[in-house]
């Protein structure tokens, strides 16, 4: 009986560990970045609660896509560096990597355009103008914080 109980507990615990390992753990920094952009959007664009509820999902998609495209773009950039440095890389390989990199660039632009066209019907013209300011300002502030995180001593 005792052995059965131990076996059951073992299965439960190992199963639980497996489940937690399978579940994708969202990066903590991604959640922070999303919260940051959402707060900045609300602060700059001045949305009412109804607008905010609708816009929040659009911002979430926009930020997640930026993470995904940037990761892909960085990966292709790394490949391009490697292919350029390698003497035995073929033209076909280089052209494919170049095309992938350019596609990532184009996807960044498309993500930007998609975000703007999606939020536009939800906002009045003044708010739409503020969305452009929000994008510039939020990116700028985030870049400042990234630089501060890289060089915390220099910020003191």
């Amino acid at each position, binding site marked *: 009986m005792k052995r059965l109980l131990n076996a059951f507990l073992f299965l439960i615990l190992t199963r639980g560990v497996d489940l937690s390992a399978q579940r994708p753990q969202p990066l*903590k*920094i991604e959640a*922070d*970045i999303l*919260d*940051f952009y*959402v*707060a*900045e959007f*609300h*602060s*700059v664009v*001045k949305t009412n*609660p109804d607008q*905010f*509820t609708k816009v929040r999902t659009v911002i979430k998609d926009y930020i997640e896509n*930026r*993470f995904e*495209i*940037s*990761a892909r*773009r*960085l990966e292709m950039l790394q490949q391009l560096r490697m292919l350029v440095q390698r003497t035995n890389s073929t033209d076909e390989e280089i052209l494919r990597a170049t095309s992938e990199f350019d596609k990532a*660039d184009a996807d*960044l632009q498309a993500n*930007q355009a998609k975000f703007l066209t999606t939020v536009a019907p939800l906002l009045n013209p003044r708010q739409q103008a*503020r969305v452009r*300011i929000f*994008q*510039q*300002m939020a*990116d*700028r*502030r*985030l*870049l*400042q*914080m*990234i630089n*501060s*995180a*890289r060089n*915390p001593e220099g910020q003191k």
Partner: protein
Amino acid sequence: MFGHLKSEDFVNLMESSEVPAQWRRHLDSCHRCRTTWESLSAVHAEITSVDEDIPEPDWAAFRSSVRDQLFARSVQREASRRRWTRWVMRPSAVWALSVMLAVGIPTGALFWNLQKDHNTESIGLETPRTTSPAELIEAGTDKMVFDDLMQLTESEKEQLHLLLQSAQKGSSHHNEKAP
């Protein structure tokens, strides 16, 4: 009885057109009185001719001329005074100036305030923090931000996490919390 003619008798004789008959008879008979009379009448005739040579002034024209010149001077003085006081004292000008000031000053102040509010709003009071609008326009960091973000080390991410947390707190203190 009847003697020589006296001085006043000679004057009366000269001025009166009618000479009494007894004086005429005495002048004819008395050599002394006739001689006096002849000399006086010559002087009288001379004086009378001088009076006739001097023309009588045209007093009406003189009065008219003086009146005209006095009027001209008064008009000249009036004109010079009006030149200085024309815009100040004229009622229509005073009213127009009053209305212009009464309407213009509040309107100007209103437009100035509206312009100031609009400028403040366009700059964005709620987003000043540390970044100026010029910096925002020239930023163009779309691609680089997330590239840099993806390349952070774990310690740098932890540092960024803390920075974002403090920014969120500052933002929630500064602005109303997002709904």
